[in-house]
């Protein structure tokens, strides 16, 4: 059974249809990379999955259970199935690195203070920032902040971790450290959805690549297929364009 099943998801803002019926499924432990040109609806899809936007239509199933969003409380609970790492980190500036990670588990009473702290320190070790536990976000580089944001998302054990262009706000020399962490998470068996413009990364890490254009899934397949022998003309043009950039 798929861990995530999305059926006919639709979302519009005013008169513009942004998602025009998105359906796909993802297996446990798989990494899905979403690529596509600007404005194609990639962020909107991730935001729908994290219930930051309410879809106009469609179903989201996680591990065989449909997520309904009738009440505010239900929406809050639904969000816990997913984690989201933002392009610009969105760390809480007034909290130390460690507090950023422990805040949500503490509010959700996911253990004693000691257990939560220990787990957070473990996560910091995983992202290579154990010695920064007491620092504040503004004292860190962008790459370090993004790694803290990843640890913060992991602290709630989301079943599916989403990334929206996690390296786009970073200087080129800092993208490597973040991508390495994501690669490490894949090896740890995490199910992930990564919206990215890093084609090389998508090709080497993803189990499945989705190419989105104008609110539809133009093509979704194994990376060798999508990058090596794209079926759709749009995909072909996009990938050719992306290769020329480098």
């Amino acid at each position, binding site marked *: 059974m798929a861990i995530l099943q999305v059926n006919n998801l639709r979302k519009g803002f005013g008169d513009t249809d942004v998602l025009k019926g998105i359906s796909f499924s993802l297996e446990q432990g798989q990494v899905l990379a979403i690529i596509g040109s600007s404005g194609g609806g990639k962020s909107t899809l991730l935001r729908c999955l*994290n*219930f*930051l936007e309410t879809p106009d239509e469609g179903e989201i199933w996680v591990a065989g259970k449909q997520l309904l969003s009738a009440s*505010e409380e239900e929406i*809050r*609970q639904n*969000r*816990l199935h*997913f*984690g*989201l790492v*933002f392009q*610009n980190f*969105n*760390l*809480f*500036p*007034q909290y130390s690195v460690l507090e950023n990670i422990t*805040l*949500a588990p503490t*509010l*959700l009473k996911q253990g004693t203070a000691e257990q939560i702290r220990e787990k957070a320190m473990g996560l910091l070790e995983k992202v290579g920032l154990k010695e920064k536990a007491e620092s*504040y*976000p*503004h004292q860190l580089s962008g790459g370090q902040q993004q790694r803290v944001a990843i640890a*913060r*998302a992991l602290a*709630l054990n989301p079943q599916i971790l989403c990334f929206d262009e996690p390296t786009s706000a970073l200087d080129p020399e800092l993208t490597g450290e973040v991508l390495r962490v994501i690669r490490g998470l894949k090896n740890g068996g995490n199910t992930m959805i990564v919206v990215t413009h890093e084609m090389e990364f998508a090709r080497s890490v993803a189990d499945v690549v989705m190419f989105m254009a104008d609110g539809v899934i133009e093509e979704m397949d194994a990376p060798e297929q999508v990058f090596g022998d794209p079926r759709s003309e749009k995909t072909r043009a996009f990938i050719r364009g992306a290769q020329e950039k480098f």
Partner: protein
Amino acid sequence: MFTQVTLELLGGFWETIKIFLLTLAFSIPLGLVVCFGSMNKWSPFRRLEAGPLHFLSGWKPIRWLTRTFVWIIRGTPLMLQLIIIFYGPGLMFGLPSMPRMTATIVAFSINYACYFSEIYRGGIESISRGQYEAGQVLGMTKSQIFFRVVLLQVVKRIMAPMSNEIITLVKDTSLARIIGIYEIIWSGEQFIKKGLIWPLFYTGAFYLIFSGALTILFGKLEKKLSYFRG
């Protein structure tokens, strides 16, 4: 003589301090209520969007009422508000008038709550949507996001305008004499009859020391919040 003047002025100064402290105690929380009112999104005619009354669909009555009220209070002199609140109930409705100090605190608290509400609103609206969204995806409730994530950042951002406004309040307290509060300037003026001008300068010293102390206090608070940026 100096001792006599000092004692007299201290009497007036005590009234000044009372107005100052009570006004702050009421207007700081009341300002938050006004602020939430001015950002309220309730829109009862939302559903009329398509019909002939579509112009009503965007109307947010609570927000509209609050903002109109804030506009009136901020657009008219505090002195006028003081007079109306003290004499108004009696002249308009035949009600017994409030004690002078009560009327003063009511007028000052409403006036300052409106100014504070706008400062709060500016602060709250300046927090990026990403902060709220980060809280949301971490499963926090609305109130947890407000109190645990947003509030301290807002406090830091409004520190400077708040301290300006509060120092203005120190000086505005002198307006209360218009409805007969024996505040410090009035007590200093008593000595003019006796041909003495220096007690008035002396009242100025009280204000300077008071606002100087507040400036130092706010400086300390700002320093305390300087451990983070945001």
